[in-house]
């Protein structure tokens, strides 16, 4: 774990350097565009996180392995953090550039839906009357949510092509100069590294919790 921590820290520092020193200012947006590196990196990480929630959920429903449930839950929690960062950085980038904090364009709407899916998974989990069933039922929620994502994507896109958007946003990857592209990939990598580090921490905690549960049961025998 320490090695992973050091790797993560180093990678983040490199990314930080590239974001603020290496990457040039944008012709149109000046400096504020640098939010993009954190924004897009969070976005990709959040999506991967939700995919892992799905994988963990399916694996749990199939094999009933506690590690599967641990992975699903940990991914949901860390993914929620990254998705929240996505939603925080988005408006902060939008306001200076578009003049508005929020708009229901395709991408933002989808982001919000993804965030709600994370919230749904975590809330259902925390409100279970019988914690023994929490794993199975939240796995069901995770699976249904994931199947929903591509359908949401299609529906929301169709919807937004029907209605002219208030602002046309050229995607962050529409012709990025190589130095920015490199910075973006390094940043995304750093965030993913951080994600997996936090995920592993979550897995360790889950294992410790189970060990405690076992000891408690032994004691009461």
């Amino acid at each position, binding site marked *: 774990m320490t090695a992973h921590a050091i790797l993560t820290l180093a990678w983040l520092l490199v990314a930080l350097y590239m974001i603020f020193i290496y990457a040039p200012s944008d012709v149109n947006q000046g*400096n504020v565009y640098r939010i993009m590196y954190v924004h897009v990196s969070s976005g990709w990480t959040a999506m991967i996180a939700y995919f892992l929630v799905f994988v963990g959920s399916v694996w749990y429903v199939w094999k009933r392995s506690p590690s599967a449930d641990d992975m699903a839950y940990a991914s949901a929690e860390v993914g929620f953090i990254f998705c929240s*960062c996505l939603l925080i950085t988005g408006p902060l980038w939008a*306001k200076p550039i578009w003049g508005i904090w929020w708009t229901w364009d395709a991408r933002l709407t989808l982001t919000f839906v993804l965030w709600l899916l994370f919230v749904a998974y975590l809330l259902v989990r925390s409100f279970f009357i019988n914690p023994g069933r929490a794993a199975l039922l939240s796995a069901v929620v995770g699976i249904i949510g994931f199947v929903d994502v591509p359908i949401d994507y299609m529906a929301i896109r169709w919807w937004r092509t029907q209605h002219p958007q208030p602002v046309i946003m050229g995607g962050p990857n529409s012709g990025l100069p190589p130095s920015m592209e490199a910075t973006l990939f390094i940043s995304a990598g750093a965030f993913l590294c951080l994600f997996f580090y936090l995920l592993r921490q979550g897995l360790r905690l889950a294992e*410790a919790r189970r060990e405690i549960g076992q000891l408690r049961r032994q004691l009461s025998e």
Partner: protein
Amino acid sequence: MADPNNKFLFIAYSLVWIVFMLYAWVLARRQSKLKRDLEELKSKTMLKDTPPPHGS
């Protein structure tokens, strides 16, 4: 150079930083609580396994 939008850049990075620091703190607290519980349970289990010596 004093781009008025810089404050958005600053706020964005600060908030992300704060969010992760908060989460790290939450994780650390959970970990220390679990550690305490584990120690407590381990000592209780040991007490159970090694019966107390009878009166001398």
